[in-house]
């Protein structure tokens, strides 16, 4: 099968074409075309080392690609660092770097975008407003935590992941990017996080999901992109594929 090519359509929120990245002599991926449609859950799957995570990091500005073009909302070359991506409306849920254990739920949800009251030349935290809004953000996504003033350290893996997703969605993000959001979770917690991703989509947020779990990808996503050995090997509609076909595409047996 030949590499996938396309011209980014206007319904794409984030797209790239001809994208390449290598680290020294090691090629992460070559000539990759990809797009995530507005309002959809777009999955990227592939074996370990296929280049998924590096592709995602290039798309959200962590790495600068060596060649090719990235489009966000139709605009080329959108950002050169993660901060710019965040300001443009892309929030990333990092695998292990999403929350600060020693801070409370509310502090985490508003970290680096704290609400302040100006008193003369001083800006003091409006802790009451942050707690109230934190409760509202959590209930909008039906996330259960004992209290927003609880330290995150004491929460379960599923609750922590839910809070980091809530944090990402809570900033009015247009696109939330998640790298293996359920990798470390139990069955029930995985179910909760999947429900959360569905609710995000219902609220019109676009989602890019990197996953190893083919069943999960078929359950959750609209479009699936398959990477293999540093290339974009295929793309399929989730509703039109089977688990066996995905396995074949990932391993190259097809």
């Amino acid at each position, binding site marked *: 099968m030949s590499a996938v090519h396309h011209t980014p359509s206007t319904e794409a929120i984030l797209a790239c074409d001809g994208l390449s990245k290598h680290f020294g002599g090691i090629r992460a991926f070559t000539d990759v075309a990809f797009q995530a449609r507005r309002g959809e859950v777009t999955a990227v799957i592939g074996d370990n080392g296929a280049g998924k995570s590096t592709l995602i990091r290039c798309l959200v500005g962590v790495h600068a690609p060596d060649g090719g073009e990235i489009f966000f909302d139709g605009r080329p070359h959108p950002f050169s660092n*993660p*901060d710019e991506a*965040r300001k443009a409306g892309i929030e990333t849920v*990092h695998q*292990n*770097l*999403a*929350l*600060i*254990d*020693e*801070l409370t739920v509310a*502090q985490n949800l508003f*970290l*680096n975008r*704290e609400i*302040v009251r100006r008193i003369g030349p*001083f*800006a*003091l*935290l409006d*802790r009451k407003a942050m707690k109230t809004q934190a409760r509202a953000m959590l209930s909008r996504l039906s996330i259960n935590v004992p209290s927003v003033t609880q330290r995150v350290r*004491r929460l379960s893996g599923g609750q922590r992941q839910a809070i980091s997703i809530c944090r990402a969605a809570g900033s009015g993000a247009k696109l939330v990017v998640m790298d293996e959001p359920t990798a470390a979770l139990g069955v029930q917690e995985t179910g909760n996080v999947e429900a959360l991703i569905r609710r995000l989509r219902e609220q019109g947020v676009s989602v890019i999901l990197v996953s190893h779990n083919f069943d999960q990808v078929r359950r959750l996503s609209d479009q699936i992109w398959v990477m293999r050995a540093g290339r974009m090997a295929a793309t399929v509609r989730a509703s039109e594929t089977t688990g066996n076909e995905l396995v074949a595409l990932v391993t190259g047996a097809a």
Partner: protein
Amino acid sequence: MTAGAAEESRSSLSALLLDPSFWADWASVVGLVGLVIVFGIAQPVFLSVANLQALLLAAAILVVLSIGQTFVVATSGIDLSLAAAVMLGAIILGLVNAAGWGIFAACVLAVLATSAVGFLNGVLITAGKIPDFVVTLGALSGITGLGLILSGGEPTMVGSTFLLRLASGSFGPFGYPVWVAIAAVIVAHVALYHTRFGVHLLATGGQAESASALGIRTGRVKIAAYTISGFCAGIASLLLVARIGSAEPLINTSLLLNSVAAVVLGGVSLFGGRASILGPAIGALMLTALVNGLTLLSVSAFYQPLAVGAIVVLAALIMRYQK
């Protein structure tokens, strides 16, 4: 209150008293109250108004230094150059004053110099990617040498009416140095709990990598923390020179050790991410009360460091139960 509610509150109180994390969080308060009771019974003079005022006056410098140390420890660092910076501030104050620049210029320059030391520590640690311990240990030695070179190893008398008044004057029940310490506690408390900087400081200390992934400039936060520590050393140097009337090229190492001890007693995690201002301030009071009480009981001064050491290690043991 019904009998059931009374019982419940009693059982929750005993649960609280049995919970080791309660003792860990309140170690400095419990220690201070314990010392006050023990010394008050053993030597009633300890509780006299005059002695308590003297105690607070003696604690002021350590309280200010402990606050500076707290900001650094909250970022999971440690400032070993704190006492050396106090010496440098004192020497600069003495020399500038002796050169006839006036006492206010001397005070300002002293605080600027110690703040610059802190800033430099922070820059070396973050930009140079050198461990906090190594940089501030190097600074400790470097500043000691600088102080000796600048002063020629000689103390400088500082005969200033302003500093004399600062040291001996009082407003209401407390001497001015105590008010300086109280002001420092209030400002630091607000900065830690009620500003974005405070949250970013704790985030940087808790998990620096996550904090920077979430867009916090952890390098700047760390530099700010060390600069605050240097600033506190400068304020402490003013209080010190005011207290002893001269600028001496000597490092009071017990100030450094006690500042770390007060931070530990105050329930601040040495791994960063968890801090309070009131805790270390009360820890500093407790250490001063310990020395004061032992002196009143005519215990030889040789036993005082032993007592401080024992209490700090005990506090660190209790801290392991902190949740």
